[in-house]
C-alpha cells in the first residue's frame, strides 16, 4: 500500500528552503570578501540579504500547512531528536530563518526602516525602540549564517537520503546534490535580480556570480554522475530504483528537463557569457535576455530535481 505522501507542497518547500540557503550563502560570501574595508561585492551582498528570508519563510508555511495537524507544529521545537533528520532540520531552519531576517534588517536602507516604523499604530509605538541601526552586524551575521545556510541546504537532501526504506534516496550523494543545487539556484536568483536592475550593470559583480554558478553547476553535475554510476553498481534494489529515471516514468523529466535544460544548457550559456574574461579580457559578454534565460533554467532545474527526487523516491522500495 505504497502511496505518495509528500506532494507538491514538500517539493516547493525543499526548493524554497534551498533557494534561501543559496541566496544567503552567496550574500554572506559577498559580505565577507572585502576590499579596502568595504564589501567587495556590495550589490550581491545587499540583494542576497534582502531576498533570502522570503522563500524560506514561505516554504516553512507550506511545510506547516502540509502537516496533518498544522497547529501542532510547535511540538517540533519542544524536543530535539538527533537521530531524526526532520528534528535537526527544524531547528536549523528556525535559527537560519532568524538570521536571515536579522541580516535583512541590517541591510534595510535607513529611510525604509524609518518609514516602516512610522506606519506602526500608536498602540505599538513602543516597538519604535527597535528602529536602530545594526549596520555593524552585517559581517558577524554573515559569518553566523554561513554554517546554517550550508546546514539548511544540505539537510533537505539528508531528509530524503536518511530513509533506508527508499533505495532511490538512500545515499549521501543526495545531500550533496541538493546542497550544490541550492547554492546554484540562489546564485541564479541573484543573477536575475542583478540583470533586472535598471541601473548600470556591474560586470565585476556579475562575473563573480557567473564564476560561482559555473562552479556550483559543475560540482552538482559531478555529483549527479557518480549518483548514477554508483546506483548502477549498487545492490539490486538501488538498480531497480534507478530505472525510474533510466527508462521509467521520470526519464524524460530527468534527462531532458533537468540534466539538459536545467543543468548543462545554463552551464554552457554562463561559460559563453564568461568567455571574454576567460581570455584575459576584463569584461564579459553580457546578453541580458540570455543571462536571464540561463538563470531561469537553473531555477527550473533546481525545482525539477526536487520534484523528481520527492516523487520517484517515494515509489522506490525494496521488493
Amino acid at each position, binding site marked *: 500500500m505504497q502511496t505518495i505522501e509528500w506532494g507538491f507542497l514538500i517539493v516547493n518547500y525543499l526548493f524554497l528552503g534551498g533557494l534561501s540557503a543559496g541566496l544567503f550563502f552567496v550574500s554572506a560570501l559577498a559580505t565577507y570578501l572585502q576590499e579596502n574595508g568595504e564589501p567587495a561585492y556590495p550589490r550581491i551582498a545587499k540583494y542576497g540579504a534582502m531576498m533570502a528570508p522570503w522563500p524560506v519563510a514561505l516554504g516553512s508555511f507550506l511545510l506547516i500547512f502540509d502537516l*496533518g495537524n498544522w497547529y501542532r507544529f510547535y511540538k517540533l521545537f519542544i524536543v530535539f531528536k538527533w537521530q531524526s533528520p526532520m528534528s535537526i532540520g527544524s531547528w536549523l531552519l528556525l535559527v537560519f530563518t532568524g538570521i536571515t531576517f536579522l541580516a535583512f534588517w541590517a541591510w534595510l536602507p535607513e529611510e525604509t526602516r524609518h518609514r516602516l516604523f512610522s506606519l506602526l499604530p500608536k498602540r505599538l509605538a513602543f516597538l519604535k525602540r527597535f528602529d536602530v541601526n545594526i549596520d555593524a552586524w552585517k559581517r558577524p551575521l554573515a559569518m553566523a549564517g554561513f554554517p546554517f545556510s550550508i546546514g539548511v541546504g544540505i539537510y533537505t537532501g539528508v531528509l530524503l537520503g536518511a530513509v533506508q*526504506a527508499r533505495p532511490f534516496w538512500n545515499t549521501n550523494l543526495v545531500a550533496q546534490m541538493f546542497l550544490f543545487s541550492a547554492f546554484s539556484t540562489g546564485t541564479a536568483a541573484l543573477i536575475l535580480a542583478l540583470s533586472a536592475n535598471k541601473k548600470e550593470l556591474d560586470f565585476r559583480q556579475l562575473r563573480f556570480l557567473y564564476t560561482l554558478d559555473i562552479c556550483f553547476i559543475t560540482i552538482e553535475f559531478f555529483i549527479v554522475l557518480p549518483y548514477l554510476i554508483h546506483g548502477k553498481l549498487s545492490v539490486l534494489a538501488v538498480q531497480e530504483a534507478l530505472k525510474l529515471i533510466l527508462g521509467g516514468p521520470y526519464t524524460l523529466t530527468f534527462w531532458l528537463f533537468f540534466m539538459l535544460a536545467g543543468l548543462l544548457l545554463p552551464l554552457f550559456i554562463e561559460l559563453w557569457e564568461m568567455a571574454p574574461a576567460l581570455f584575459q579580457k576584463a569584461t564579459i559578454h553580457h546578453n541580458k535576455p540570455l543571462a536571464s534565460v540561463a538563470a531561469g533554467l537553473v531555477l527550473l532545474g533546481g525545482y525539477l530535481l526536487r520534484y523528481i527526487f520527492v516523487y520517484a523516491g517515494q515509489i522506490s522500495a525494496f521488493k
Partner: protein
Amino acid sequence: MADTKKKRYVLVLDSKKCINCKACVVACKAENGVPVGKFRDWITEERRGTWPRLMATFDPEQCMHCENPSCVRVCPTGASWQRKDGIVLVNYDDCIGCRYCMIACPYNARYFREDLGVVDKCTLCAHRVDKGGIPACVETCPSKVRVFGDLEDPSSDVSQLLNTRRYLVKKPETGNGPQLYYLL
C-alpha cells in the same frame, strides 16, 4: 502486580496455512475501528502458472514491530515510540502528521488518518495484550496461521516454533530487524 520480567512480543506466521479468508483483516478493523479504505493488516497474494499447473501463495502482512524501527528513529517529535516489550506505537497527541514515518517504513505498514490528522498503525492489540489477551487477528484466524507470544520466554509457542522450524523475515536488508517470523 507489575510484571518486571523482560518481554519481547512477536508473531510467528505459517503462511502455508493461510486460505486468504481475510478474517484477520476484518477482526482487526472491528477491534480497532480502522477507517474504511485503511488497513492495519492485509494479505499479499501471488498466483503463478496456468490451469492445471498453478500455485497461489498468501502472505499475511502488517507492522513488523521491528527491533530497530526506522519509523521511530525518524519521527521528529517522539510520537512514534517503542515499548520495552517491542510493540511500536503512535502517540496521537504528539503526532503532527508529517508522515515521515510512513515514508521511512519499508513495509508500508502505516496509514494516515485524515479525520484526526495523525498516522496510525497496528498496535499488536496492546490493549488486549496488556490484559493477558492475544491480538484480535491471532484469535480469529480459523486456520491458525498466526502465533503470538513472548520470545523471551523459552517455553512459549513462538520460541518453540522458532527453535524447531526454519523461517525467514521480510526485507532484512533494510536493517530494521523485523519481528514477524514467516515459517518455511
